């Protein structure tokens, strides 16, 4: 189910913990699996559980708790806009509204061409750069005024 490469990466994470505590690597393993598969399908979660010797529901608990794990398919670019208080006070909600208008989708929706998915995010620890936004979980963008958003969207191809 998981590729050799993914297994190798997970093994590296597992090695960071005591031998009888493989489950400590569950968050890293889910991240690796999600990068490989695009999202965490039930069978992907079951595969991670099997690999770490955990009950599938225990992995599902983790996967459903954190919002950077996607339990349904997402577009090529997942845009997560922070709407927590500091961002909201500095235009986070506006940034989200602008994106909704521009892409024609609401939160947790994907554009018909499968290119963008819009998500509402929690604090990204970049309040000073508010409004903050995350592209595909790994790229953090700050000061997301409409101009900046237009630039970003043009850049994402």
């Amino acid at each position, binding site marked *: 189910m998981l590729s050799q490469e993914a297994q190798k990466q997970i093994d590296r994470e597992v090695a960071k913990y005591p031998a009888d505590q493989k489950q400590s690597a569950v968050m890293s393993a889910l991240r690796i699996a999600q990068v490989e598969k695009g999202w965490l399908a039930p069978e992907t979660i079951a595969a991670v559980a099997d690999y770490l010797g955990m009950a*599938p529901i225990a992995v599902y608990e983790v996967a459903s708790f954190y919002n950077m794990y996607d339990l349904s398919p997402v577009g090529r670019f997942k845009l997560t806009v922070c709407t927590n208080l500091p961002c909201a006070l500095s235009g986070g909600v506006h940034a989200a509204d602008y994106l909704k208008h521009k892409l024609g989708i609401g939160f947790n929706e994907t554009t018909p061409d499968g290119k963008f998915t819009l998500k509402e995010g929690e604090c990204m620890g970049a309040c000073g750069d508010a409004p903050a936004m995350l592209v595909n979980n790994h790229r953090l963008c700050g000061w997301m005024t409409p101009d900046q958003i237009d630039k970003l969207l043009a850049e994402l191809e």
Partner: protein
Amino acid sequence: MLQLEIDGKQIEVPEGSTVMDAARQIGTFIPHFCYHKKLSIAASCRMCLVQVEKAPKPMPACATPVTNGMKVMTRSEVAVKAQKDVMEFLLINHPLDCPICDQGGECQLQDLSVGYGGMASRYQEEKRVVVNKNLGPLVSTDMTRCIHCTRCVRFTAEIGGFQEMGQAFRNEHAEIMPFIESTVDTELSGNIIDLCPVGALTSKPFRFSARAWEMSRRKSVSPHDGLGSNLVVQTKLDRVKRVLPLENEDVNECWLSDKDRFSYEGLTAEDRITRPMIKEGGQWREVDWHTALEFAAKAVKGAAAEHGAASLGALASPHSTLEELYLLQKLVRGLGCDNVDFRLRQSDFSADGKRMGVPWLGMKIAQIPKLDRVLVVGSFLRKDHPLLALRLRQAARKGTQVSVIHPTRDALFMPLAARAVVAPDQMVGTLAQVAQALAGIKGVALDASVPAVTVGDEAKKMAESLASGANGAVFLGNLAQQHACASTLHFLAEEISRVGGLTLGFLGEAANSVGGYLAGALPAVDGLNAARMLAEPRKAYVVLGAEPELDCADGAQALAAMEAAQAVIVLSPFKGRATEYASVILPVAPFTETSGTFVNTEGRVQSFNAVVRPLDETRPGWKVLRVLGNLLGHSGFDYDSSEAVRHDLLGESAEVSSKLSNGLSRIAVTLKPAAAGLQRVADVPIHFADSLVRRAESLQKTKDARPPMAAMNAATLAGLGLSAGDKVKVKQGAGVAVLSAALDDTIAAGCVRVSAAHPTTCGLGAGEITVERV
């Protein structure tokens, strides 16, 4: 010890106690939902908030460790206000519609809301709605009622051994659920119904059929596995409505296996027989008791007169009561016949006459968690002994080293020190290896009859584990007891326990596996045992509570013997296939309708009373056998209660411990080379083990009740040129069964697992087995 004060009362508690432990010790009730004495601490419901002196805010009693000199107020203004506030929060999202909830009347939330809830809700907004989950045929859900105490989650993870439930999502979106598309399938799943403090998890078979206050609560004892779980049977209008555990720390703690809990559904099975029936001129007709008993007595007497007393045979189910077993053997012995047996699934009887007492657990059940080393030989542990497995699992998780010798690598959900997955015929050799390795480590000589063997790695590991402990045990499971070389396994296990200073125990197969021996329901002098009674067909049989084609080691042979007999007298609550071969069927009461006694595997004599009146013309088995004894002109059959029968057998004290012993005089051990052909691993599936549970409708819908397949590991399957899913013809003895082949890598090489006791496989005989494509 720590000193503390709760509501002005001074108490002393051991270090590490929580405030909740201390309060329970002095009988002070602190309201709670998520706390449960057998589960880990979650402190998620916050209902047990109490005031602690010098603490800035209320503390959860279940998670606050006692410190010396602590002062706790459980009913102070601060504490009660905190508890009331928590209750208000809990009720915000909980539906306030107790009258339509199945838990109404026995609901902890309902009860506590009377004491701590407001008269009306201040909450006007919309309540949360949660989609129900499918947890399988036994547990019904109403997830909107869930208060997220996580007792069910902790139960599956900590007690059941495999986390089947979890809390997914978070915050107000949190939901208790199984993994997507999964159900709750362990043999202990029904316990989450008892644990749920609200109406979120309820019993599917019982749902909406009665209210808690309408039912009578009667004590009883489970008639299934060797544990003899204590039951509370709830009845209404002389019908059993449901079964709950009766707490007994020494036996079942507060748990029940699903088999114990839901088997009551079989009591109202379609083929329940409620009036005596006789077959005359090939026609079945219902008759009164007198006619039926006269008919039965005449048939037995006739066969005995015509062919001699030895032409009779009596087969009893080990799930019968002690009184029934005692009277049955007394009845046939009164005719001068010694052919009586209750060990229907056993195939090796060579230990008869060499045994030093009644085989039993070898210790008290409550001592199992104190063992530090355990070797389990031949046991489908979880399915055959769900609650003993639970105790062993708790021990293993606390450091007890458990080793297993068995033909399948079943998931036991416990850490194992060593495991040998070997074909049935190699179990003797493996056990001999362990014996030799252990004798080597201990420097004690083995009995001369044990041949020298080459010790393998796994056997060496087991011996090292066993040798390193101070309080170890060897347990022989059902498969070891039903094994073709059961006596040899017994002897080797005894040698291992002797040289290793361990305790030897038998995991009792059925409710009265010990009781049958005590009752003398087995050949005493020259009688035939269960296997020989069928191999050398008798002219007349008395069958008590058993379905020979399903309950005997060789079902095909049993059925043939029944069909060939001139008279078969069946005493059973169910018709089953008896109408095909019996001459008279006497409807005797199942355990709920008769008084009686089960002696469990630890030798605990547990008597019980009927919980409901016998259905229609059904009569308790002991009464039927008593009258039959009178009609046959036997003396000493004038009992007027089941207690009188028990007194006659066990005396007033009912003390049996002096009769229990697992000792065995020497048996020559011969090691066989590995068999060339396939070997059958015949498990008795948990929900097919006796006539009652076979008819329990909801249990029959569980995954444990799936029809048998011919399961083999990949190499064996490939060696036969088969692939999973193929229809195959399984031949054993004179019997044939058509099953589908299945891939199961937990099975030892060269073996095929074909479950017994199922209608599709009961035609199979004994001995060599072949599997070929249809």
